């Protein structure tokens, strides 16, 4: 009996790895730190509009459908509420030790631990954590979700009144050498545009302004989404926001330069959403040490060969899927998952031959 593949992380990438391995008749153990599967996609209000519509109304419908299939797959064993504390042995004979004391023999390990959103509390110029009407994109997403705290309505946290004027600040925590994060988080322009477009779609009278340096809606269908957002009335102002200040009525004054007009800009908004960039998952240090794999200069796990083996970690038998190598769209996490499953299967067959 082949030893199972141990997948660390029960988000969409991890679940996809498990499902594709299962379709290739390879068993797996899916280990998830939190009590439930699904990861970050669960709280998304809407996935990006694409050319074919999978028919999911929100993130939870999507993750639920994945989870149903995972639970139905006999070759997949799910362990929630636990973490990996040690890794013994070598490829293809690992033993994974879990926090609950159990030891799992594994032929290979897949790291699908995702990312953490940057915490903007450390950038006091935006007032996050001090001014109630400054929130993060994650919080905005949850607010826009009909399952969320306001039933999908945009409100000002300070007084609960409807928020008609929304500012979305791009590049919070990314593309900033000064704070040691020179990289681009790649997906924020796109998710921000999606959020802005959603707000305008629901309330054509709203004022939504996106403050950008570049609009990197790079993937298939994303530029079209950007175009649609603008047609719906989303304003795009080119200038990095320098600070947010609270006014006497708790509205927020947003300061930037409109670099296309060469003039400083100042506008008042009911709500400001900080499109935060990515950081590696919270326990990335511990994982890197425990598993014996290296990280790149941006903190995310490094692959062994950039082009030929982009999913191999720097140690034999350990593989990387999903946002563990950097934030990417859901679809790319799914593609990653499938690619890793194929790679692991091939290597395991070769090792056991």
């Amino acid at each position, binding site marked *: 009996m082949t030893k199972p593949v141990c997948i660390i992380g029960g988000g969409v990438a991890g679940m996809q790895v498990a499902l594709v391995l299962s379709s290739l008749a390879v068993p797996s153990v899916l280990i998830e730190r939190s009590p439930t599967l699904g990861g970050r996609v669960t709280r998304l209000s809407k996935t990006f509009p694409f050319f074919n519509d999978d028919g999911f109304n929100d993130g939870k419908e999507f993750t639920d459908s994945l989870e149903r299939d995972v639970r139905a797959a006999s070759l997949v064993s799910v362990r929630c509420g636990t973490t990996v504390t040690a890794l013994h042995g070598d490829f293809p004979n690992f033993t994974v030790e879990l926090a609950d004391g159990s030891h799992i023999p594994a032929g290979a390990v897949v790291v699908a631990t995702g990312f953490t959103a940057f915490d903007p509390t450390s950038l006091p110029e935006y007032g996050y954590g001090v001014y109630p009407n400054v929130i993060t994109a994650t919080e905005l997403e949850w607010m826009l979700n009909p399952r969320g705290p306001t039933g999908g309505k945009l409100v000002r946290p300070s007084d609960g009144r409807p928020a008609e004027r929304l500012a979305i600040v791009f590049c919070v925590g990314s593309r900033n050498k*000064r704070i040691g994060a020179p990289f681009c988080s790649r997906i924020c322009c796109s998710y921000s545009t999606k959020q802005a477009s959603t707000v305008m779609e629901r309330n054509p009278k709203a004022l939504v302004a996106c403050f950008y340096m570049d609009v990197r809606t790079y993937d298939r269908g994303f530029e079209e989404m950007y175009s649609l957002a603008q047609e719906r009335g989303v304003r795009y102002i080119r*200038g*990095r926001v320098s600070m947010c200040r609270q006014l006497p009525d708790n509205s927020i004054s947003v300061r930037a*330069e409109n*670099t296309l007009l*060469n003039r*400083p800009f100042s506008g008042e908004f009911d709500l400001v959403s900080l499109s935060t960039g990515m950081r590696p998952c919270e326990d990335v240090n511990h994982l890197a040490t425990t598993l014996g794999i290296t990280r790149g200069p941006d903190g995310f796990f490094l692959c062994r060969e950039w082009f030929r083996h982009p999913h191999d970690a720097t140690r034999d038998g350990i593989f990387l899927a999903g946002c563990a190598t950097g934030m990417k769209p859901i679809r790319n996490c799914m593609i990653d998952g499938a690619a890793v499953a194929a790679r692991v299967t091939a290597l395991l067959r070769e090792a056991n031959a």
Partner: protein
Amino acid sequence: MNSDIKRSEQMFPAALLAKRSEELKDISDNELVQAYESMRDEEGAAGAAFPNIKRLYGTALEREKDRREIRGQAEHCDGETQKWYEEARNAPCTWWLENHLVAKRALKSCIGCGICTARCPAAHYFPEYNPRTIVDAALAKNEDRLVELLKSDILWYCGQCASCKPKCSRENNLMGLISSLRFLAQLKGYHLCSVRGRQQYAMRHLCGGNLWNRACTLYFRNVDAEHHPDFGPRYARYHAEVDDQMVRLGASPDRPGPFGGRKLPPQTIAEFRACLAAGGTLVLWNQLEQWAAEDAIKKGLSIEEYHDRVSREG
């Protein structure tokens, strides 16, 4: 011998103080300096102010004496920094950007995010001012654009507050770049092409004069009601009795002692001046004098009239 005594009698106090700089030109450098210093160091009653300092500051005598002294000190200084600035004066602006101690480390790269301009108080106040365009000109390394910048008023709007510095995504030092370019503009005489640039001649004598003679950028008598009517009548009242108020508070107006207004011993002033000279500053000051003299002639003004005009223009 007799004529010498007669000469020194002629030179002593009030006569010289009232003279304009062209009237002082027949007096030799040494005589002028000695006359100034003897007046400056004449003591009053014990513990009281040195009485002549307040008569000497800001006068044509002081300015003319400064001109001579600074020329002399620069001539005798063969420091390597002085030479560096003398040569830099003739090199292209692009050379300066790569070699000046401040300029060469001021800019790395710019994504044009505009966060500097968003915070800049001057950008909010002056409609035509945009600090981001200064970065662009410097990074373009285009000599013509740089010269145009150095000749414009735009270079002089920055208030050196550093609001831009903590925010720059690429860790640039825009304030330092502007400061460095301003130095270059003056060396090359480009500052003469803008109203605000020409003001530097007045700055040279106001701040520079205070530094040279009192080793302190501001002299308490400079900030009087006449030059600062915006401070209102209460301040005018205070300044009318400023000597007594300063003594009361523990300062040392025009006398040896600690804190505000203190008269420093000549030995300290000498060390201070030596530091200025060794650092190459006198190259700038001499250059400013030269440019001002030329510009004054072009405009048909005496140097004192020119000095007066540039401090009021705009």
